Protein backbone atom coordinates (compact mmCIF):
# COMPACT_ATOMS: atom_id res chain seq x y z
CA UNK A 1 0.00 0.00 0.00
CA UNK A 2 2.85 2.31 0.71
CA UNK A 3 4.57 4.63 -1.66
CA UNK A 4 6.75 5.98 1.18
CA UNK A 5 8.10 2.83 2.85
CA UNK A 6 7.25 3.93 6.40
CA UNK A 7 7.23 2.09 9.73
CA UNK A 8 6.36 2.71 13.36
CA UNK A 9 9.87 3.36 14.68
CA UNK A 10 9.74 7.15 14.43
CA UNK A 11 9.75 9.22 17.61
CA UNK A 12 9.28 12.76 16.34
CA UNK A 13 8.63 15.03 13.35
CA UNK A 14 10.51 18.32 12.93
CA UNK A 15 9.35 20.97 10.48
CA UNK A 16 11.26 24.03 9.31
CA UNK A 17 9.90 26.86 7.20
CA UNK A 18 10.28 30.51 6.39
CA UNK A 19 8.86 32.93 3.83
CA UNK A 20 5.88 31.35 2.08
CA UNK A 21 5.55 28.43 4.47
CA UNK A 22 2.56 29.58 6.51
CA UNK A 23 0.00 28.19 4.08
CA UNK A 24 1.78 24.84 3.88
CA UNK A 25 2.19 24.52 7.60
CA UNK A 26 -1.46 25.31 8.32
CA UNK A 27 -2.54 22.79 5.71
CA UNK A 28 -0.46 20.12 7.43
CA UNK A 29 -1.70 21.05 10.91
CA UNK A 30 -5.35 21.21 9.81
CA UNK A 31 -5.25 17.71 8.32
CA UNK A 32 -3.40 15.89 11.07
CA UNK A 33 -4.93 12.55 12.00
CA UNK A 34 -6.89 12.87 15.26
CA UNK A 35 -4.72 10.22 16.87
CA UNK A 36 -1.35 11.33 15.58
CA UNK A 37 1.07 9.91 18.15
CA UNK A 38 4.33 11.77 17.48
CA UNK A 39 5.40 15.17 18.73
CA UNK A 40 5.62 17.77 15.96
CA UNK A 41 8.44 20.24 16.57
CA UNK A 42 8.32 23.36 14.42
CA UNK A 43 10.90 26.04 13.86
CA UNK A 44 9.55 28.77 11.60
CA UNK A 45 11.16 32.10 10.87
CA UNK A 46 9.08 34.84 12.40
CA UNK A 47 9.23 38.46 13.43
CA UNK A 48 11.80 38.64 16.19
CA UNK A 49 10.09 41.21 18.33
CA UNK A 50 6.51 40.09 18.08
CA UNK A 51 6.04 37.57 20.82
CA UNK A 52 2.30 37.07 20.51
CA UNK A 53 -0.11 36.17 17.74
CA UNK A 54 1.77 33.61 15.69
CA UNK A 55 1.12 30.58 17.87
CA UNK A 56 -2.53 31.61 18.16
CA UNK A 57 -2.83 31.91 14.37
CA UNK A 58 -1.40 28.41 13.95
CA UNK A 59 -3.58 26.99 16.72
CA UNK A 60 -6.76 28.19 15.03
CA UNK A 61 -5.92 26.11 11.96
CA UNK A 62 -4.50 23.13 13.79
CA UNK A 63 -6.31 19.96 14.87
CA UNK A 64 -4.46 20.21 18.20
CA UNK A 65 -3.35 23.41 19.96
CA UNK A 66 0.17 24.59 19.21
CA UNK A 67 2.35 25.62 22.15
CA UNK A 68 5.57 27.58 22.53
CA UNK A 69 7.36 25.50 25.14
CA UNK A 70 9.22 26.83 28.13
CA UNK A 71 12.88 26.11 28.66
CA UNK A 72 13.43 22.48 29.85
CA UNK A 73 9.83 21.50 29.07
CA UNK A 74 9.33 17.78 28.40
CA UNK A 75 8.42 16.78 24.86
CA UNK A 76 5.16 14.85 24.94
CA UNK A 77 3.67 12.39 22.48
CA UNK A 78 1.23 14.19 20.22
CA UNK A 79 2.37 17.63 21.36
CA UNK A 80 2.73 20.35 18.72
CA UNK A 81 5.52 22.77 19.51
CA UNK A 82 6.66 26.03 17.97
CA UNK A 83 10.03 27.69 18.61
CA UNK A 84 9.31 30.99 20.43
CA UNK A 85 10.33 34.33 18.95
CA UNK A 86 13.89 35.54 19.59
CA UNK A 87 15.08 32.22 21.07
CA UNK A 88 16.90 29.30 19.53
CA UNK A 89 15.16 26.05 20.44
CA UNK A 90 17.19 22.86 20.95
CA UNK A 91 16.10 19.31 21.65
CA UNK A 92 18.12 17.79 24.51
CA UNK A 93 18.99 14.19 25.40
CA UNK A 94 16.29 13.21 27.89
CA UNK A 95 13.59 14.41 25.48
CA UNK A 96 13.07 18.01 26.51
CA UNK A 97 13.54 21.47 25.01
CA UNK A 98 16.19 24.03 25.85
CA UNK A 99 16.07 27.68 24.81
CA UNK A 100 19.03 29.94 24.15
CA UNK A 101 19.70 33.51 23.10
CA UNK A 102 22.96 32.84 21.29
CA UNK A 103 24.00 34.80 18.21
CA UNK A 104 21.72 34.60 15.19
CA UNK A 105 22.50 31.82 12.72
CA UNK A 106 21.78 32.39 9.03
CA UNK A 107 20.48 35.76 10.19
CA UNK A 108 17.80 33.94 12.17
CA UNK A 109 16.77 33.36 15.78
CA UNK A 110 15.15 30.89 16.06
CA UNK A 111 17.44 29.13 13.58
CA UNK A 112 16.03 26.03 11.88
CA UNK A 113 19.51 24.45 11.69
CA UNK A 114 19.68 24.41 15.50
CA UNK A 115 16.28 22.78 16.06
CA UNK A 116 16.78 20.24 13.27
CA UNK A 117 20.42 19.52 14.15
CA UNK A 118 19.79 18.94 17.85
CA UNK A 119 16.70 16.82 17.10
CA UNK A 120 18.82 14.70 14.74
CA UNK A 121 21.40 14.23 17.52
CA UNK A 122 18.73 13.06 19.99
CA UNK A 123 16.36 11.02 17.78
CA UNK A 124 18.90 9.83 15.19
CA UNK A 125 17.23 7.46 12.67
CA UNK A 126 13.91 7.84 14.47
CA UNK A 127 13.31 11.35 13.18
CA UNK A 128 11.36 12.72 10.23
CA UNK A 129 12.49 16.15 9.00
CA UNK A 130 10.34 18.34 6.76
CA UNK A 131 11.59 21.58 5.20
CA UNK A 132 9.14 23.93 3.49
CA UNK A 133 9.29 27.14 1.46
CA UNK A 134 11.81 29.78 2.52
CA UNK A 135 14.01 32.61 1.33
CA UNK A 136 17.33 31.73 2.95
CA UNK A 137 19.53 28.71 3.43
CA UNK A 138 18.67 28.04 7.07
CA UNK A 139 17.54 24.44 7.56
CA UNK A 140 19.73 22.98 4.83
CA UNK A 141 22.47 21.90 7.24
CA UNK A 142 19.86 20.65 9.69
CA UNK A 143 18.37 18.40 7.01
CA UNK A 144 21.83 17.09 6.21
CA UNK A 145 22.32 16.20 9.89
CA UNK A 146 19.00 14.33 9.91
CA UNK A 147 19.97 12.40 6.79
CA UNK A 148 23.47 11.66 8.11
CA UNK A 149 21.98 10.16 11.29
CA UNK A 150 19.68 7.95 9.23
CA UNK A 151 16.43 9.92 9.64
CA UNK A 152 13.81 10.44 6.94
CA UNK A 153 14.08 13.71 5.00
CA UNK A 154 11.29 15.46 3.10
CA UNK A 155 11.32 18.84 1.38
CA UNK A 156 8.50 20.74 -0.27
CA UNK A 157 8.55 20.47 -4.06
CA UNK A 158 10.49 23.64 -5.11
CA UNK A 159 8.06 24.42 -7.94
CA UNK A 160 5.24 24.65 -5.39
CA UNK A 161 7.19 26.95 -3.04
CA UNK A 162 6.60 30.66 -2.99
CA UNK A 163 10.38 30.92 -2.50
CA UNK A 164 12.43 27.80 -3.13
CA UNK A 165 15.86 28.81 -1.72
CA UNK A 166 15.41 26.80 1.46
CA UNK A 167 14.35 23.41 0.05
CA UNK A 168 16.91 23.78 -2.73
CA UNK A 169 19.66 24.42 -0.16
CA UNK A 170 18.76 21.11 1.47
CA UNK A 171 18.62 19.28 -1.86
CA UNK A 172 22.11 20.58 -2.67
CA UNK A 173 23.56 19.51 0.67
CA UNK A 174 22.23 15.99 0.98
CA UNK A 175 20.23 13.27 -0.74
CA UNK A 176 16.66 14.10 0.26
CA UNK A 177 14.36 11.06 0.52
CA UNK A 178 11.15 12.66 -0.74
CA UNK A 179 10.50 15.89 -2.64
CA UNK A 180 6.76 16.39 -2.23
CA UNK A 181 3.90 18.82 -2.64
CA UNK A 182 2.22 19.79 0.62
CA UNK A 183 -0.81 17.59 -0.21
CA UNK A 184 1.50 14.60 -0.49
CA UNK A 185 3.21 15.49 2.79
CA UNK A 186 -0.26 15.42 4.34
CA UNK A 187 -0.84 11.96 2.79
CA UNK A 188 2.49 10.74 4.13
CA UNK A 189 1.65 11.86 7.67
CA UNK A 190 -1.75 10.18 7.46
CA UNK A 191 -0.20 7.00 6.18
CA UNK A 192 2.42 7.11 8.93
CA UNK A 193 -0.31 7.39 11.54
CA UNK A 194 -1.72 4.00 10.45
CA UNK A 195 1.48 2.23 11.48
CA UNK A 196 0.92 3.30 15.09
CA UNK A 197 -2.60 1.85 15.39
Amino acid at each position, binding site marked *: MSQFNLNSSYKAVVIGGSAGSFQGITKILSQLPKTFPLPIIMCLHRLK*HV*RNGFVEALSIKSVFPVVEPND*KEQIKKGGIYLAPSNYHMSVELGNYFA*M*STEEMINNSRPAIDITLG*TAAFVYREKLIGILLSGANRDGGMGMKHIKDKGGLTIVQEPSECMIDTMPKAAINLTKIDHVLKVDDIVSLINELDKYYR
Partner: protein
Amino acid sequence: MIQDIDIADLKRITELIHSKYGYDFRNYAMSSFKRRMLRILEVKNLSIESLLKKLSESPVFINEFLDELTVNVTEMFRDPGFWRVIRDEIIPGILLNHKTFNIWHAGCSSGEEVISMAILLREMGIHNDVSLYATDLDTTILEKAKMASYPAKNMELNEKNYIRFEGKWTLKDYCKEENGKVTFDKGLLANVTFRKHDLVIGDVFNKFDLILCRNVMIYFNQTLQNEVLKKFHASLFKYGYLAIGSKESLIWCDVANRFLVVSNEEKVYKKIKD
Protein backbone atom coordinates in the same frame (compact mmCIF):
# COMPACT_ATOMS: atom_id res chain seq x y z
CA MET B 1 36.25 22.84 10.96
CA ILE B 2 35.20 20.26 13.56
CA GLN B 3 31.56 19.25 13.06
CA ASP B 4 30.80 17.63 16.38
CA ILE B 5 32.19 16.94 19.86
CA ASP B 6 31.61 13.74 21.83
CA ILE B 7 29.94 13.95 25.20
CA ALA B 8 33.05 12.26 26.60
CA ASP B 9 35.23 15.12 25.32
CA LEU B 10 32.87 17.74 26.73
CA LYS B 11 33.20 15.95 30.06
CA ARG B 12 36.99 16.04 29.88
CA ILE B 13 36.85 19.80 29.33
CA THR B 14 34.41 20.52 32.18
CA GLU B 15 36.29 18.23 34.59
CA LEU B 16 39.60 19.92 33.82
CA ILE B 17 38.15 23.41 34.29
CA HIS B 18 36.51 22.34 37.53
CA SER B 19 39.58 20.75 39.05
CA LYS B 20 42.00 23.45 37.91
CA TYR B 21 39.97 26.66 38.16
CA GLY B 22 36.92 25.83 40.30
CA TYR B 23 34.34 26.88 37.70
CA ASP B 24 31.66 24.25 37.42
CA PHE B 25 30.10 23.79 33.99
CA ARG B 26 29.18 20.17 34.62
CA ASN B 27 25.51 21.05 34.96
CA TYR B 28 25.24 23.34 31.99
CA ALA B 29 22.60 22.50 29.36
CA MET B 30 24.20 20.19 26.83
CA SER B 31 23.38 21.45 23.38
CA SER B 32 24.15 25.13 23.90
CA PHE B 33 27.33 24.25 25.81
CA LYS B 34 28.42 22.04 22.93
CA ARG B 35 27.76 24.84 20.43
CA ARG B 36 29.86 27.22 22.53
CA MET B 37 32.70 24.69 22.57
CA LEU B 38 32.52 24.22 18.80
CA ARG B 39 32.58 27.98 18.45
CA ILE B 40 35.65 28.35 20.67
CA LEU B 41 37.48 25.63 18.74
CA GLU B 42 36.65 27.42 15.50
CA VAL B 43 37.39 30.99 16.63
CA LYS B 44 40.66 30.02 18.35
CA ASN B 45 41.51 27.48 15.67
CA LEU B 46 42.13 24.68 18.17
CA SER B 47 41.59 20.94 18.31
CA ILE B 48 40.09 19.37 21.43
CA GLU B 49 43.51 18.15 22.51
CA SER B 50 45.14 21.55 22.01
CA LEU B 51 42.27 23.22 23.89
CA LEU B 52 42.76 20.86 26.83
CA LYS B 53 46.51 21.50 26.74
CA LYS B 54 46.02 25.26 26.68
CA LEU B 55 43.56 25.15 29.56
CA SER B 56 45.88 23.07 31.69
CA GLU B 57 49.07 24.99 30.90
CA SER B 58 48.05 28.60 30.49
CA PRO B 59 46.07 30.13 33.38
CA VAL B 60 45.62 33.45 31.55
CA PHE B 61 43.70 31.67 28.82
CA ILE B 62 40.80 30.89 31.16
CA ASN B 63 39.46 34.48 31.09
CA GLU B 64 39.49 34.55 27.32
CA PHE B 65 37.83 31.14 27.36
CA LEU B 66 35.08 32.24 29.78
CA ASP B 67 34.37 35.30 27.66
CA GLU B 68 33.84 33.15 24.57
CA LEU B 69 31.92 30.50 26.46
CA THR B 70 29.29 32.73 28.03
CA VAL B 71 26.54 33.96 25.74
CA ASN B 72 26.71 37.73 25.67
CA VAL B 73 23.90 38.53 23.25
CA THR B 74 21.58 41.05 24.83
CA GLU B 75 19.62 44.17 24.01
CA MET B 76 18.30 47.21 25.87
CA PHE B 77 14.67 47.00 26.99
CA ARG B 78 14.40 43.42 25.69
CA ASP B 79 10.68 42.51 25.90
CA PRO B 80 9.32 46.06 26.28
CA GLY B 81 6.16 44.72 27.93
CA PHE B 82 8.32 43.35 30.74
CA TRP B 83 9.82 46.77 31.37
CA ARG B 84 6.37 48.37 31.48
CA VAL B 85 5.36 45.86 34.17
CA ILE B 86 8.52 46.71 36.15
CA ARG B 87 7.78 50.45 35.91
CA ASP B 88 4.02 50.36 36.37
CA GLU B 89 3.52 47.50 38.85
CA ILE B 90 6.66 46.12 40.44
CA ILE B 91 8.55 49.24 41.47
CA PRO B 92 5.40 51.01 42.73
CA GLY B 93 4.81 47.84 44.79
CA ILE B 94 8.29 48.05 46.32
CA LEU B 95 7.90 51.78 46.97
CA LEU B 96 4.81 51.13 49.09
CA ASN B 97 7.12 49.65 51.72
CA HIS B 98 10.56 51.16 51.12
CA LYS B 99 11.82 54.53 49.95
CA THR B 100 15.22 53.10 49.13
CA PHE B 101 15.91 49.62 47.81
CA ASN B 102 18.36 47.20 46.15
CA ILE B 103 18.25 45.56 42.73
CA TRP B 104 20.47 42.68 41.58
CA HIS B 105 21.16 42.03 37.90
CA ALA B 106 22.42 38.45 38.06
CA GLY B 107 24.38 37.59 34.92
CA CYS B 108 24.47 41.19 33.67
CA SER B 109 26.63 40.49 30.61
CA SER B 110 27.57 43.71 28.76
CA GLY B 111 25.19 45.75 30.89
CA GLU B 112 22.36 46.68 28.52
CA GLU B 113 19.78 45.61 31.09
CA VAL B 114 21.48 47.63 33.83
CA ILE B 115 21.45 50.77 31.66
CA SER B 116 17.80 50.10 30.83
CA MET B 117 16.97 49.89 34.54
CA ALA B 118 18.94 53.05 35.33
CA ILE B 119 17.04 54.94 32.61
CA LEU B 120 13.72 53.61 33.90
CA LEU B 121 14.57 54.68 37.46
CA ARG B 122 15.71 58.11 36.32
CA GLU B 123 12.47 58.60 34.42
CA MET B 124 10.57 57.65 37.58
CA GLY B 125 12.61 60.25 39.47
CA ILE B 126 13.98 57.70 41.96
CA HIS B 127 17.40 56.97 40.46
CA ASN B 128 19.24 58.17 43.58
CA ASP B 129 17.17 56.01 45.90
CA VAL B 130 18.12 52.68 44.38
CA SER B 131 21.35 50.66 44.64
CA LEU B 132 22.02 48.34 41.73
CA TYR B 133 24.33 45.34 41.84
CA ALA B 134 25.43 43.92 38.51
CA THR B 135 27.28 40.61 38.52
CA ASP B 136 28.71 38.19 35.99
CA LEU B 137 31.31 35.43 36.08
CA ASP B 138 33.00 36.84 32.98
CA THR B 139 35.40 39.63 34.04
CA THR B 140 36.04 40.73 30.45
CA ILE B 141 32.36 41.44 29.91
CA LEU B 142 32.08 43.23 33.28
CA GLU B 143 34.78 45.68 32.18
CA LYS B 144 32.77 46.26 29.02
CA ALA B 145 29.61 46.82 31.02
CA LYS B 146 31.37 49.50 33.09
CA MET B 147 32.22 51.40 29.90
CA ALA B 148 28.53 51.63 28.94
CA SER B 149 29.65 51.86 25.34
CA TYR B 150 27.97 49.92 22.54
CA PRO B 151 28.12 49.61 18.75
CA ALA B 152 25.95 52.32 17.18
CA LYS B 153 24.42 49.72 14.89
CA ASN B 154 22.68 48.11 17.88
CA MET B 155 20.82 51.30 18.63
CA GLU B 156 18.09 50.88 16.05
CA LEU B 157 16.79 47.80 17.86
CA ASN B 158 17.34 49.34 21.31
CA GLU B 159 15.51 52.50 20.29
CA LYS B 160 12.59 50.44 18.91
CA ASN B 161 12.33 48.57 22.20
CA TYR B 162 12.46 51.85 24.13
CA ILE B 163 9.60 53.27 22.05
CA ARG B 164 7.49 50.20 22.79
CA PHE B 165 8.43 50.54 26.46
CA GLU B 166 6.86 54.02 26.17
CA GLY B 167 9.81 55.85 27.70
CA LYS B 168 9.69 59.59 28.24
CA TRP B 169 12.35 60.72 25.77
CA THR B 170 14.56 58.89 23.28
CA LEU B 171 17.65 56.79 24.01
CA LYS B 172 19.68 59.36 22.08
CA ASP B 173 19.09 61.75 24.95
CA TYR B 174 21.07 59.44 27.21
CA CYS B 175 24.11 58.81 25.03
CA LYS B 176 26.67 60.34 22.68
CA GLU B 177 27.68 58.85 19.37
CA GLU B 178 31.30 58.87 18.22
CA ASN B 179 33.19 56.70 15.73
CA GLY B 180 30.43 54.15 15.35
CA LYS B 181 30.01 53.79 19.12
CA VAL B 182 27.46 55.21 21.50
CA THR B 183 28.47 55.90 25.08
CA PHE B 184 25.85 56.32 27.76
CA ASP B 185 25.88 59.05 30.41
CA LYS B 186 28.15 57.72 33.17
CA GLY B 187 25.79 59.24 35.75
CA LEU B 188 23.42 56.39 34.95
CA LEU B 189 25.92 53.96 36.47
CA ALA B 190 26.61 56.10 39.56
CA ASN B 191 24.66 53.78 41.86
CA VAL B 192 25.76 50.56 40.21
CA THR B 193 28.23 48.17 41.85
CA PHE B 194 29.78 45.79 39.36
CA ARG B 195 31.31 42.64 40.78
CA LYS B 196 32.41 39.22 39.68
CA HIS B 197 30.03 36.55 40.90
CA ASP B 198 29.41 33.01 39.69
CA LEU B 199 25.83 31.86 40.24
CA VAL B 200 26.92 28.22 40.33
CA ILE B 201 29.55 28.37 43.07
CA GLY B 202 28.98 31.87 44.48
CA ASP B 203 27.39 32.57 47.87
CA VAL B 204 24.43 34.69 48.84
CA PHE B 205 26.13 38.09 49.28
CA ASN B 206 23.34 40.56 49.96
CA LYS B 207 19.56 40.96 50.28
CA PHE B 208 17.47 42.46 47.53
CA ASP B 209 14.01 43.79 46.79
CA LEU B 210 14.22 42.86 43.13
CA ILE B 211 16.39 40.32 41.32
CA LEU B 212 16.56 40.15 37.53
CA CYS B 213 18.01 36.99 36.04
CA ARG B 214 16.59 36.77 32.55
CA ASN B 215 17.81 34.25 30.00
CA VAL B 216 20.75 33.17 32.12
CA MET B 217 19.44 29.97 33.71
CA ILE B 218 18.43 28.65 30.27
CA TYR B 219 22.09 27.64 29.94
CA PHE B 220 21.78 25.40 33.04
CA ASN B 221 20.16 22.00 33.41
CA GLN B 222 17.21 21.66 35.80
CA THR B 223 19.33 20.40 38.70
CA LEU B 224 21.44 23.53 38.57
CA GLN B 225 18.46 25.82 37.94
CA ASN B 226 16.91 24.43 41.10
CA GLU B 227 20.04 25.22 43.14
CA VAL B 228 20.34 28.74 41.75
CA LEU B 229 16.66 29.46 42.41
CA LYS B 230 17.23 28.52 46.07
CA LYS B 231 20.02 31.12 46.19
CA PHE B 232 17.72 33.74 44.69
CA HIS B 233 15.06 32.91 47.25
CA ALA B 234 17.63 33.34 50.04
CA SER B 235 18.82 36.62 48.50
CA LEU B 236 15.39 38.23 48.46
CA PHE B 237 13.69 40.10 51.27
CA LYS B 238 10.24 38.74 52.05
CA TYR B 239 7.84 40.28 49.49
CA GLY B 240 10.77 40.95 47.14
CA TYR B 241 10.46 40.18 43.42
CA LEU B 242 12.23 37.79 41.06
CA ALA B 243 12.14 38.34 37.29
CA ILE B 244 13.17 35.59 34.87
CA GLY B 245 13.12 35.26 31.07
CA SER B 246 9.86 35.02 29.13
CA LYS B 247 10.45 31.33 28.34
CA GLU B 248 11.68 30.35 31.78
CA SER B 249 9.50 29.06 34.59
CA LEU B 250 9.84 28.22 38.26
CA ILE B 251 6.61 26.29 38.80
CA TRP B 252 8.53 23.00 38.97
CA CYS B 253 11.35 23.97 41.35
CA ASP B 254 11.73 23.27 45.10
CA VAL B 255 11.06 26.86 46.17
CA ALA B 256 8.06 27.32 43.84
CA ASN B 257 5.51 27.37 46.66
CA ARG B 258 7.36 30.20 48.37
CA PHE B 259 6.67 32.46 45.44
CA LEU B 260 3.50 33.98 44.02
CA VAL B 261 3.08 34.65 40.30
CA VAL B 262 2.77 38.42 39.80
CA SER B 263 2.93 38.43 36.01
CA ASN B 264 2.62 35.14 34.17
CA GLU B 265 3.14 36.81 30.80
CA GLU B 266 6.33 38.64 31.84
CA LYS B 267 7.50 36.02 34.38
CA VAL B 268 7.71 38.10 37.54
CA TYR B 269 7.35 36.34 40.89
CA LYS B 270 7.03 37.59 44.48
CA LYS B 271 8.58 35.88 47.48
CA ILE B 272 5.82 35.27 50.00
CA LYS B 273 7.48 32.77 52.38
CA ASP B 274 10.95 32.59 53.91
